[in-house]
């Protein structure tokens, strides 16, 4: 495992962030969706050029709605995160795949439930939901983007403009919040990163 030496300027005790791993879940997510004709995917951010290009060159249509930045703005306005869900105004059964990255880590249970409900509605039957959860509390509240590189390598890039609270959940707590979905696969890396791939139940793509 490689660890970055980058430290948050305001926190000299910050722990090193794990960087660089080959994502098995991401590969499965992409391999499955690439086989579909005109697959549509939704990335909930943070906005990342590498990721947008990666998916836009592989999927029929790639949607991006940076919910991290929207949540931060709602927080700044002292509004409930629920106000941010209005941005996810996509038609029902519109997507074959949704990437949440670690968005759930920055939401309380009620908001995760609402988000999962929206994802369920927006996904087609057999659609995939990919998410990441940190096992250890990050030293800083700065949000990271998971940058896709060659051969499904994922690197972490801090987003200094984004600071959000962090919530820890055990695997069981997380999967129970997504109980409407079928869990396809999950991995835990020694760095403390957990990856999950869920599938919307259904016999065929609707």
């Amino acid at each position, binding site marked *: 495992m490689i660890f970055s030496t980058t430290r948050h300027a305001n926190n000299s005790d910050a722990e090193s962030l794990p960087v660089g791993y080959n994502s098995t879940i991401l590969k499965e997510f992409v391999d499955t969706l690439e086989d579909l004709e005109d697959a549509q995917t939704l990335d909930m951010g943070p906005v990342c050029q590498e990721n947008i290009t990666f998916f836009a060159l592989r999927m029929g249509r790639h949607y991006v709605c940076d919910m991290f*930045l929207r949540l931060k703005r709602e927080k700044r306005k002292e509004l409930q995160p629920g106000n941010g869900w209005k941005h996810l105004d996509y038609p029902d059964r519109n997507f074959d795949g949704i990437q949440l990255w670690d968005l759930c880590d920055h939401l309380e249970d009620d908001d995760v439930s609402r988000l999962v409900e929206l994802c369920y509605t927006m996904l087609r039957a057999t659609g995939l939901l990919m998410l990441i959860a940190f096992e250890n509390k990050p030293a800083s509240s700065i949000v990271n983007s998971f940058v896709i590189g060659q051969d499904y390598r994922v690197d972490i890039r801090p987003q200094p403009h984004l600071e959000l609270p962090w919530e820890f959940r055990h695997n069981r707590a997380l999967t129970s919040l997504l109980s409407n979905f079928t869990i396809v696969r999950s991995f835990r890396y020694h760095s403390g990163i957990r990856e999950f791939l869920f599938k919307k139940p259904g016999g065929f793509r609707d």
Partner: protein
Amino acid sequence: MLKRTKKDENSTPNSVGDTLEEKPTPSSLGPTVGQERYSGEETTIIGERITIEGSIRGEENLVIEGAMKGTIEMGKHDFSIGPNGRVDGEIHAQNVSIDGLFKGTIKALGKVAVTKKADFNGEIKAKSFSVEDGAYFKGVVELDREAHKKSEATESPREPSSPEPAKQSVIPPNDVKMEK
């Protein structure tokens, strides 16, 4: 206020459709065009206090620092929205740069670039795309997959002649625990 970055006595002005509202503009509102981006090509700048509703068709580069609602047809020329610019509509151009507020559709023959200051809500069809971390972005991105495949095919013959560096797995197999 319309400004040109390069004087040309013989050239004809842009055809600006429907309404063109021009108000006195302080001299402090200067152009904010990157010289390197537009060097060698004339560029028209629509100033911060200009509001246009309708369509613009141009044969040179265009920067909007003001507000525009409608269709912008720049053919093989570049189009930019400045930091204070606001555009709601459809843009057709060679390369497009968004530094301000945009809502609508962009069809670019080349690249679309969205900066971190941008507030983007719309659809992009382009050959290539870039966006800076921090951009307020909601959109659909469709890139020219055929052009990408062709460029990959063109590059591939070079690969066998140069030995590929050994791929380094940063996580050894035993570092991964399969839970289900």
